[in-house]
């Protein structure tokens, strides 16, 4: 068993076009490290320094990990982790 990770279109360049990949790890951070070993470049699109990038949403099953423990959120075999780019913007005056 492993953790099923759903990859959005914009990041599939790192997974050879795959919509879902598998990984292992005790936390979201460890899982991302594991994915990085097979899909180099992916981590930098998800993590910025100590935390998740602001405009990337990472979900553990049905929960946004931001409302859990962020990168320290525990994960286990059989979980599904979903990555979605946030949809954001706005007409801020220059």
């Amino acid at each position, binding site marked *: 068993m492993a953790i099923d990770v759903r990859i*959005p279109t914009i990041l599939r360049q790192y997974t050879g076009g795959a919509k879902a990949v598998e990984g292992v790890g005790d936390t979201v951070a460890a899982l991302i490290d594991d994915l990085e070993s097979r899909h180099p470049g992916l981590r930098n699109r998800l993590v910025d320094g100590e935390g998740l990038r602001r405009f990337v*949403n990472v979900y553990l099953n049905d929960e946004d990990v931001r409302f859990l423990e962020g990168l320290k959120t525990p994960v286990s075999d059989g979980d599904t982790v979903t990555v979605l780019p946030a*949809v*954001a*913007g*706005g007409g*801020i*005056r*220059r």
Partner: protein
Amino acid sequence: MLSIDSDLVEAIIAHARRDHPDEACGVVAGPTGSDRPLRLVPMVNAERSPTFYRFDSIEQLAVWREMDQRDEEPIVIYHSHTATEAYPSRTDVAYAAEPAAHYLVVSTRETDTVEIRSFRIVDGEVTEEEVHVTGRE
């Protein structure tokens, strides 16, 4: 070019007017690969702001999953500008993450007229496209 039914355009404008002066946002889903926007999904602007929008992350997950199950994709991603023109701002370009989507921007800064324009945003490059409103006699 974006082809979209007039009923959908009217519904998007109504949503933008309703949420004014905050920005409104949402998607129009359609069958994957079809380029046909058919199903309007108004979204909550989690920022509830006149200058910024962000889809509520939990709602976004539910909507994206539903699209996946129905073999749909976000054909149109729309939002409103409430004090500026209907042209992608620097923030719109910086966060645009769906290269296959039509980014529809509605300006509600005038009370009597509405400006509605569509763009492709790919790798930071903005390309305006024609909006063809269908179903109008």
